[in-house]
C-alpha cells in the first residue's frame, strides 16, 4: 500500500469507522454505497484531501462514484495532483 493510499484509508478508518464497528476497510470497500460515508460527510473528506494533498477538487468532480472506494479517491487525488 503506497503512502497516499495509506493516508486515505487511515483517515477513513479513524473518522468514519467508530469503536465497536468491526467492518474492515480495504482499497475496494464501497464507502458511499456501503453506507460508511454518506454524501454529506463527503465534504469533510474532500476538505481533508485538499488540505493534505495541496489540491482543489471541483464540486463537479466530487461525486459519490469518485468517493466510493479508497482506490477511486486515490485516483481522483492523483488526477488533480498531475494537473
Amino acid at each position, binding site marked *: 500500500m503506497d503512502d497516499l493510499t495509506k493516508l486515505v484509508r487511515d483517515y477513513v478508518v479513524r*473518522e468514519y469507522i*467508530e*469503536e*465497536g*464497528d*468491526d*467492518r474492515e476497510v480495504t482499497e475496494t470497500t*464501497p464507502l*458511499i*454505497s*456501503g*453506507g460508511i*460515508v*454518506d*454524501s*454529506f*460527510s463527503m*465534504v*469533510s473528506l474532500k*476538505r*481533508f484531501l485538499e*488540505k493534505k494533498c495541496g489540491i482543489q477538487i471541483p464540486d*463537479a468532480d466530487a*461525486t*459519490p*462514484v469518485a468517493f*466510493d472506494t479508497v482506490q477511486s479517491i486515490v485516483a481522483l487525488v492523483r488526477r488533480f495532483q498531475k494537473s
Partner: protein
Amino acid sequence: MSNHPTYEERTANFDWSISEKELGYKKGDPINIGWMCSDRICRMGLAGKLALIWEDYQGVQKRYSYDDIRVLSNTIAKYLVELGIQPGERVCLFMDRVPELYVGFLGILKTGAVAQPLFSAFGDESLFVRLSNARTSAIITQKKHAFKVRKIRHQLPDLRHIIVVDAGEAALQERELSFQMENTPGVEDFPVYPTTSESPSVLHYTSGTTGQPKGAQHVHNSLISQYLTAKWVLDLHPDDIYWCNADPGWVTGTSYGIIGPWVNGITQVVLDSGFNAEAWYKFIARHRVTVWYSAPTAIRLLMKEGKELTRKYDLSCLRHLCSVGEPLNAEAVHWSQEVFGKPFHDTFWQTETGCIVITNLPGMPIKPGSMGRPFPGITASVLNPVTFEPINQNGVAGLIALRPGWPSQVRGYWNNELVYQAKFRNGWYLCGDRATIDSDGYFWFVGRDDDVINTGGHLVGPFEIESALLEHPAVAESAAVAKPDPVNMEVVKAFVTLKPGYQPSDDLELEIMNHIRKRLSPLAMPQEIEFIDSLPKTRSGKIVRRVLRSKEFNEPLGDLSTIMND
C-alpha cells in the same frame, strides 16, 4: 388521455369515510396499524403475496410474503411483551434499512407500545436527547450502532433493554440482549393489543428553531389518511412494485415506506445502500419498479450523473414518479420528463401532518416548480403573518396553514404542550413554511418561516448544532444558519468565535466539522465554518441568526436597529 379522475371529481363530496369504508373500519372499533398492515392483508387472501423484497449494497437479497411479515411481526411483538414492555411505552428502532426495522415497526405497534424510529446515522448526543426526552424503555439496534448506546446508557435509567438483532457471538454488555428474528421460532398467533383511533402509535422527532427536537406524537388513526393518500397520490395499484427511497428514521420512511404500501397490500422493494446512481438504475430495472417515491436531492444527484447513464438500463417499467422533502425545482421535473418520459409529481407534507397534504395528484396538469393543490379533505391556505387571516390575493406570499382535523394530524409534542399550542393561530395549524397561491389554486413554495435548515429534505434545528459547537474546546460562541446549495437546497453553515489562545485554521475547521458529524449527524455537520470576531446580537445579548442567513442568501438585511454594535 389520463384515466384518473380530475381534481374536481376527487374533491367533490370528499370525506375521509371513503378510506374507512375501504379499510372495513367503523369508528369506535379497535384499529391497530400493525394488524392492518399484515394480518388484514393475509385475511384478504394475499398471504402469499410478496410484501418486501430487500437488497443490500452487495446484492444480497431477502424476500418476505405478507404471511412472513405477519408471523415475524408477531414474533417480535411476543418477544417484547415477554420482556415486560407495556402498551404506551416507547420502543426505539435504531437500525439501517434492514428487514428487522420494517417488521419490528409493525411488531411494536401490535403490542400497543409506541414505535420511536431514529435515523441510524445519528451520533450519541442526538440519540441521547431523543431517548431521554421520550423516556424510552427499549431500543432495537444493530451491533455496529450499539456502541453509541453504550456511550449514553448510564444516563438513561428508563432504558431497560438494548436489543441487538445481529449480535451473533459478540459479547453482550449490561442491559443488552440478543434477538435474531429469523432464528426465533415463528409466532403464528399473537393477541394484538386493541388500540383505538386515538391510541399513540409513532413518535417522530423533528427540529424547531428553539430548544431541542420535539417528539411529534401520532396515533393509530393516522392510517386513515396514509392509506388513501398512498393509494391516490402514489397511485398504487395491486400489481405495482413500489420503491420509497426514504429511511424510516424519518416520517416519509414510516408513513410511505412502511404503512402506505403495506396497508394497500403492495409489494415494496428496499435497497439498504448509500447513493450510487448506476446501482439505483440497476435496482429499478432488475425489480421492474413501477412507482418510485424519491426526493429532490436524490433527483439532482442523478441529474449530475448525466442522461447517458439512464440509457444504459431499461427503465420503461417506471409508471409513476413522486418526490418529497423540499421543493422540487422545475428543471428536475423537465429532466425526468425527458429521461423517464414522465414527470416527478411533487408532494408537500411534514412530520406533523403525518400524510401528504398538498400535492400533484395523478391526472392533474403539473406546473413544474409548483407544490400542487391541497389533497381532498385538506383545507389549506396562506395567512397574513400579522393577522393570521387568509390572503385572498394571488401571488402574495403568506404562511402555509391547514385547518385542523385530518386523521393523521399530530396529536401533540411529547411533554411539550406549550410549543404544540404555539403551532395554532386563529383556528389554523401553521406549517412553518411560506408560499403563494396562483389563480388556479396551485401552491408555490417560497421558503421557511423560521431558522430551521432544510438540508436534503431533512429539517435540522440550529439550536442543537450551536449547543454541540459549544462543546468543542475552541468555540466561544456560535450561530448555525442555512446556506443555499445547488444539490441539497440548503446546507448548514456555522459562524464561530474562538476562545483566547485559538486561531482560525483549516485543521480547526475540519476538526469542528467532524466533531458535529460524530456528535449529531452528517446532516447537521456544517459544510462551511466561518471564523469571525463577533456575532450580531440584540442589546439583550441574543444572537441574531437572521442577519447571517440573509447575507448567505443575498437578501436584504432588514431592520438592524436592535442589533448591538461591538
